[in-house]
């Protein structure tokens, strides 16, 4: 029995085919070369990265991609060759990854992120940030009042964070703690690094637990406020009020803002989940989730800066006015950054949106 499949089949001159050549066969013969070209480009981009493609190849990619898309829709309407339609489907899918995957260079992405996206997203979330700040502040004030009246509350609010700074310590010991300096090469660097990664992890957690309806987020914020208030009260009672703020604020401004931002991100998520409004839950999560992630990444950056201030600056500078001046400078810096950076870009975007 002869097997026809064993006979080599491809690359015949068109005339060799029977008179009633199929349109779908014709169609494939005309376009196959461009599909193969696209296939090669995709393979190169996958193997060595998009950036290794030459300028000419890069310019050709979207053109070939659109050609493949049009081939796919033609094939769907005229060809009954399942293998062909499935091949085109795969080809378009693979090309889609390359064309619509994240595209820009990493450096440009980072510049864009910090130059516009982060401050703009933070501005858009101002009400959530306000809510997170109020929760923290309310807890801090309550803890401050209670601890000022009765120092035993300190153990309840800040017990685990005390690190030897307890009501049992004398004013002199507490004072030493505030002005104690160490050489920067000591155990301090490790301490600062662990502190940063610990804080950042808590921040990310405050965001992520927004997915559990935001209750843990609120608790984290509240607890953070309690520790802060109790801690400040302890020093105030001992007459070290100004000193403790000068000790805390240089890094605290940045750190507390970052924690509040993470909390706000968690609240964004929680709101999208619990009160999706007119949209479906999935839609509102998708939008708010992305915004929240942008805020959290910004906050992690801030916590890193706070860690640097805490680990290096505070341990080498002990003058109260200088410490307060630095605190004021960081506050002004963040207000400027989140309040004003990238505003022009937003307006330009709105204008082009309208022009379209």
């Amino acid at each position, binding site marked *: 029995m002869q097997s026809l499949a064993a006979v080599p089949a491809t690359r015949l001159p068109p005339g060799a085919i029977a008179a009633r050549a199929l349109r779908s066969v014709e169609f494939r013969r005309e376009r196959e070369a461009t599909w193969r070209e696209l296939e090669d480009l995709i393979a190169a981009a996958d193997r060595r990265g998009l950036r290794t493609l030459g300028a000419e190849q890069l310019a050709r990619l979207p053109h070939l991609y659109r050609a493949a898309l049009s081939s796919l829709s033609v094939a769907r309407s*005229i060809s009954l060759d399942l293998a062909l339609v499935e091949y085109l489907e795969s080809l378009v*899918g693979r090309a889609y990854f390359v064309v619509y995957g994240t595209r820009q260079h990493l450096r440009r992405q980072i510049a864009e992120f910090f130059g516009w996206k982060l401050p703009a997203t933070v501005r858009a979330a101002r009400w959530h940030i306000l809510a997170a700040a109020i929760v923290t502040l309310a807890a801090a004030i309550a803890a401050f009042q209670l601890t000022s009246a009765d120092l035993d509350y300190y153990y309840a609010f800040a017990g685990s964070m005390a690190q030897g700074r307890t009501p049992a310590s004398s004013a002199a010991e507490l004072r030493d703690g505030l002005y104690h300096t160490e050489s920067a090469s000591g155990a301090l660097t490790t301490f600062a690094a*662990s502190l940063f990664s610990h804080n950042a992890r808590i921040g990310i957690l405050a965001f992520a637990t927004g997915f559990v309806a935001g209750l843990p987020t609120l608790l984290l914020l509240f607890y953070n406020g309690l520790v802060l208030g109790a801690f400040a009260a302890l020093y105030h009672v001992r007459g070290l009020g100004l000193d403790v703020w000068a000790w805390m604020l240089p890094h605290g401004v940045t750190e507390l803002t970052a924690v509040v931002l993470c909390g706000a991100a968690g609240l964004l998520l929680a709101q999208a989940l619990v009160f999706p409004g007119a949209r479906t839950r999935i839609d509102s999560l998708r939008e708010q989730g992305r915004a929240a992630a942008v805020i959290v990444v910004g906050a992690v950056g801030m916590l890193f800066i706070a860690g640097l201030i805490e680990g290096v600056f505070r341990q080498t500078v002990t003058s109260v006015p200088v410490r307060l001046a630095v605190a004021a400078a960081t506050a002004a810096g963040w207000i400027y950054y989140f309040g004003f950076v990238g505003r022009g870009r937003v307006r330009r975007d709105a204008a082009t949106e309208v022009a379209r």
Partner: protein
Amino acid sequence: MRPVVSALRINDNAQLVREIVTPEGIPVRFTLARAGDRAAGFAIDLVIQIALLVVIGLGLRSAVGDTGTWLTAAIVLLAFALQNFYFALFEIRWQGATPGKRAIGIRVIDARGGQLETSAVLARNLIRELEVWIPLRLLFLGGIVWPDAPGWARLVAAAWAFVFLFMPAFNKDRLRIGDMIAGTRVVMQPKLVLVPDLVDETAAAAAALRRAAPGATASAAAAYSFNDAQLSIYGIYELQVLEGVLRINPGDLSHLEVLRTVSDKVRAKIRYEPAVLDHERFLREFYTAQRTHLEQKLLFGQRRQDKFSR
């Protein structure tokens, strides 16, 4: 009859196929990655992360010398950066793939078919703290985090860990919480195989036969012919099943058996009287004739889906 049955499965995992509409307005189908593939990809990435940590840590130690604290600080920072930004960085730079995903052949795409945004990549990966790292810590380091935890706390922790770790297995879109929040999907990277067109192949084979035996043109070239009535019985579905049967790797005996069975069925159905010696050849020519017939109908807007449609 088992081989025929397997050839019938044109789309073997139809419930995992999702259609997304590209910005050009053309729907393209992707197959969602299975939970097992994703877990395997994650495991590979985890191993790479740990290896990176160990290698860079040892490298730093040999470069800077064993000066304790700086080294510890650097490793703490590195561990944090790897844990939280390893996935995001790769997915941004490699168009939705990490080394593990690439090895398995899966990718992240935007669920609505748009460009994969940086913020989406960040969102889907930051949430890992909640759904991966905390559960893992609870499961494996629970005793260290909370030494004398009561039984109920361990139970709650285990429940938490399982709900989040196995989320993709519980919903029909195989979504991790990160995917829900970011609006992304993880899909299989389709394989690119363009096999020759059966019609082309059959015609070429016939032409080769004609060249080999010029005298026997009449009998060899148009061995089988079909009339319109015979071609109006089957529809597109049957045509494509036949395509599947013909594309099964030829050569082994069971395949010949399958071809004969199919050929017998087809001949009985379309009342084809003449004797058939070469069943494969008969089926190929029937395929060509049937496809030509159906594609011509298609040009006139008549799409006959299967043998049951009128």
